[in-house]
Each structure stands twice: as structure tokens, then as C-alpha cells.
């Protein structure tokens, strides 16, 4: 078996605009920038470089339909600060029926794609994950 996840692909009517949000949200860099496709990769020299899949924004004619079946979970060091920062960048909190007592915050990017900001890992969890 020789197969790996290379890209997470996101359909959008505006690849450049939506990529700008995620570029700022994750601090990633634009490595391909055309009208039909924009690619983001982790910063050079970061632990994620060459490991995390690229984010590939693909131009499509149609807007988003229902709730996505696939979404991203983001792990912050400071959940409240990151949620506030992402809101300033154009994300918003959304209710997908998650309830009030969950440890993560459900948000949507400017195109409405749902994602979650998880709680920060505890010191013990960080030690375990290396």
C-alpha cells in the first residue's frame, strides 16, 4: 500500500479570497496562485512542512449547499484568543447542533465552511504527544 493524503481540497467561487482567510488563519504561505486554483502550504522550516496536507482551493461555479461532511479541526494553544482572532479575520461562530457543553468551538470560514477550534492540549497531553 502506497497512498497518502496530499491535499485537502476546498471548492469555492473565489479561490483567492478564501485562500486569503486561511493563509492568515493558519499562517501558511501561498505556493501556487492562479485564477482557478490557489495552494497553501505550511511555512518553510515549520514542523508541519512536508507533513500536513496542502490546502487546495478550487474554483467552482456553485455556492456551498448543505453542511459539509468533511471539516478541519484546528488545535490552538489559547482557544479564546484564537477564536477572537479568527472572528476578526472573517470567521463566525455557528450552531450545527453541537450543544452548549462541548469543549470545542464551531466556526465557519467566510464561505460558510464549518471548522472547529478545539480546546488547548493540557501539559500532560502535550508531553504525551511529543
Amino acid at each position: 500500500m502506497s497512498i497518502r493524503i496530499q491535499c485537502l481540497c476546498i471548492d469555492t467561487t473565489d479561490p483567492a479570497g478564501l485562500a486569503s482567510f486561511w493563509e492568515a488563519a493558519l499562517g501558511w504561505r501561498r505556493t501556487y496562485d492562479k485564477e482557478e486554483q490557489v495552494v497553501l502550504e505550511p511555512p518553510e522550516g515549520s514542523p508541519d512542512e512536508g507533513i500536513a496536507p496542502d490546502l487546495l482551493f478550487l474554483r467552482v461555479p456553485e455556492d456551498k449547499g448543505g453542511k459539509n461532511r468533511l471539516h478541519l479541526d484546528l488545535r490552538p494553544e489559547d482557544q479564546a484568543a484564537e477564536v477572537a482572532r479568527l472572528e476578526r479575520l472573517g470567521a463566525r461562530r455557528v450552531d450545527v447542533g453541537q450543544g452548549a457543553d462541548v469543549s470545542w468551538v464551531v466556526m465557519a470560514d467566510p464561505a460558510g465552511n464549518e471548522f472547529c477550534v478545539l480546546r488547548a492540549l493540557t501539559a500532560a497531553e502535550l508531553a504525551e504527544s511529543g
Partner: protein
Amino acid sequence: MTIRLSSAVINCADIELMTSFWSEALGLVPSSSAPDDDFRVLRGRPMNVSLQLARTPIRARDQMHLDLYTDDQAGEVERLVQIGAKVVRHNRDPEDDYVVMTDPEGNEFCVIALSEV
């Protein structure tokens, strides 16, 4: 700014079926096998895939999908079919060769030959 991509999460109706398929498809290791799980992390590189029990029906094409790269496109497509995937179409453009497939719950993903990249 300290935030990292942690996991790609797939909503699913049958978490055991999807655990079986995606673990085998990508060589991932389930973090749990408890029968009442409503969330399960499948650990691996380059990133974890998580499964979340949800009743969201597949109403339309999702805005997000996974691209899988392989150096043996034909062999991998055949293997994925054997474990429960279906072929939707094969785009044979030499400049852009990929096979669109669906997992056992109908989520689309693409299998791309590494030499084409």
C-alpha cells in the same frame, strides 16, 4: 498566532463501517474501538482522520474532499474498490489524470498518480 491543523473530520452515519474503510485505505490506527463511540480519531501520517457520528445526509457534492497521491494508481484504485469504495469516473487527461471515487458512505475523494504531479 499558535494554531495548527489537527485533523480532517468526516461526518458519518456508520462509524464502524467508516473506521474499517478509512483505516485500511490509508493505514491509519483507530484510537478506540468502543461500541458507543460518537467520535473516533484514526491516527497516522500525514494527518489524523477523525470520524464523527452525524445524521447530516449527503445532499449535494461536498465543498471539501481529500486528494490521495499514489505511485500505483491502478493498483490502489483496485484495492480501494475491494475494501468498499466505488469508482465515479476516471479523468484521463494526460495533464490532469485522476480517479474520482466514493467511500462507503458516498463521500468523494480523488486518487492521483504521483508521476502526474
